[in-house]
């Protein structure tokens, strides 16, 4: 358990599977059964074709660094400076996250660098998907 004080997500019926997955150490995405579109954030239908026939599946957890800023003033639960990043998942969708296990500097944070998901428990219910530089 780390960093108390962060604003934490409050799951809704449509996103519960994502947060259940995160708690279990799994990054869950959704795929359309009709057009195969993979999407995020969660919703009970496909934003590409409108089909309600969609499935949840575990993503690889591999991603690349798409863009970020390094914030120089810390809100509760953070230590400045820290990067607010957007990563591109191997499966296509992008998500906001923080990058851990590496200095929060432009030199260490190179766009397109390989990353992997690392879950961090905030409390008994919520684990946040964070990303760290990929091994090897």
């Amino acid at each position: 358990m780390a960093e108390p004080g962060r604003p934490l997500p409050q799951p809704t019926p449509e996103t519960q599977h994502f947060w259940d997955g995160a708690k279990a150490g799994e990054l869950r995405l959704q795929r359309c059964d009709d057009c195969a579109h993979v999407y995020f954030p969660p919703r009970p239908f496909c934003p590409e074709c409108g089909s309600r026939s969609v499935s949840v599946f575990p993503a690889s957890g591999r991603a690349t660094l798409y863009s970020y800023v390094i914030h120089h003033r810390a809100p509760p639960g953070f230590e400045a400076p820290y990067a607010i990043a957007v990563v591109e998942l191997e499966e296509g969708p992008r998500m906001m996250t923080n990058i851990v296990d590496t200095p929060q500097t432009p030199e260490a944070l190179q766009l397109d660098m390989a990353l992997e998901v690392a879950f961090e428990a905030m409390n008994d219910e919520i684990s946040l998907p964070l990303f760290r530089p990929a091994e090897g």
Partner: protein
Amino acid sequence: MRPNTIAIVGAAETTDLGKTPNISEITMHADAALNAMADCGLTPKDIDGVATAGRTPTEIAHYLGITPKWADGTAVGGCSFMLHVRHAAAAINEGLCSTVLITHGESGRSGVDRAPRRMAPTSLAGQFELPYGPMGPPTMFTIPVLRYMKEFGLTEEQLAMVAVVQREWAAKNPRATFKEPITVDDVLDSRMIAYPFRLLMCCLVTDGGGALILTSADRAKDFPTKPVYILGTGESVETPMISQMADFTTSRAFRVSGKKAFDEAGIAKEDVDHLMIYDAFAHLPIFGLEDLGFVGRGEAGAFISERNTVEGAKLPLNTNGGGLSYMHSGMYGMYALQESVRQMRGIAPAQVPDAKISVAHGVGGMFGASGTIIMSNEAP
């Protein structure tokens, strides 16, 4: 809309801009509205349509003593007022009402009776963005920029130049908050807010308001003010989450809104004499110039730093000093519209000589929405 059927006949900002803790937000709406009515010789009884954002049209109509036949509370952020102009034009043309008042007021700095805005922890942004520590626009609106810089080679110096040239415009404007000249070094030496963004690449936070009054082009001739005709209008929305913007190097909402406005107006980019692009941060004019089609992809940073948007150059841009130097209450779109109207009336502090066509392009949220209004001062 059909070009040249609607005109702006009244336009004004609040009596004071900057730091005005003596009046509450709703009174800023009213102060600007009364100034705009005085500008064109109307009273609240003459207004039969009301549009606003930040507050509800119900609050504004009641506060000012207006009985509207038409109300629009479209609230998509700082460009809401561009959308209001567009919707009002359609409503007047359809006969839903005849004289529309659009108001803005925001106690952005002093926070007197400011409408609260909080993202619910159940919203998609509350679940999938807020836990990662963004603290408002300076840490979110700026996230796409490193990707743009890598893609096109935009430099921090070029970003800084956006602030430098806008300060040059602000120096000519007595009402601008910051008028002292700045250099690229000043910008790059200013406090780091969220790398790569430094303080002087970010907009001001001030109090203020503005209001517009629109009617049909036919009726506009009976007003004491010089009519400013609406040539074309556009709007679009994309996403409430910056992380979900489809492409970090170009705004879909900008492209859709801009194209629609230019198609309606039936004009070419070369016909534009004056341009306003909502500049909450230094990269906004860069995205705007490219997404509206004034320059090619990746060319806007050089276009600005080579001084193509300064006084006397080919495309005068953000001539009031912009959100970076003039003022920025939070929903700046109204001030971009006001400067376009002043330029079309020929009364701007930094007047572009013989300007006949002006474009005011706005952003809402963080690349979440967009509105584009093209104006002309030539009678149809």
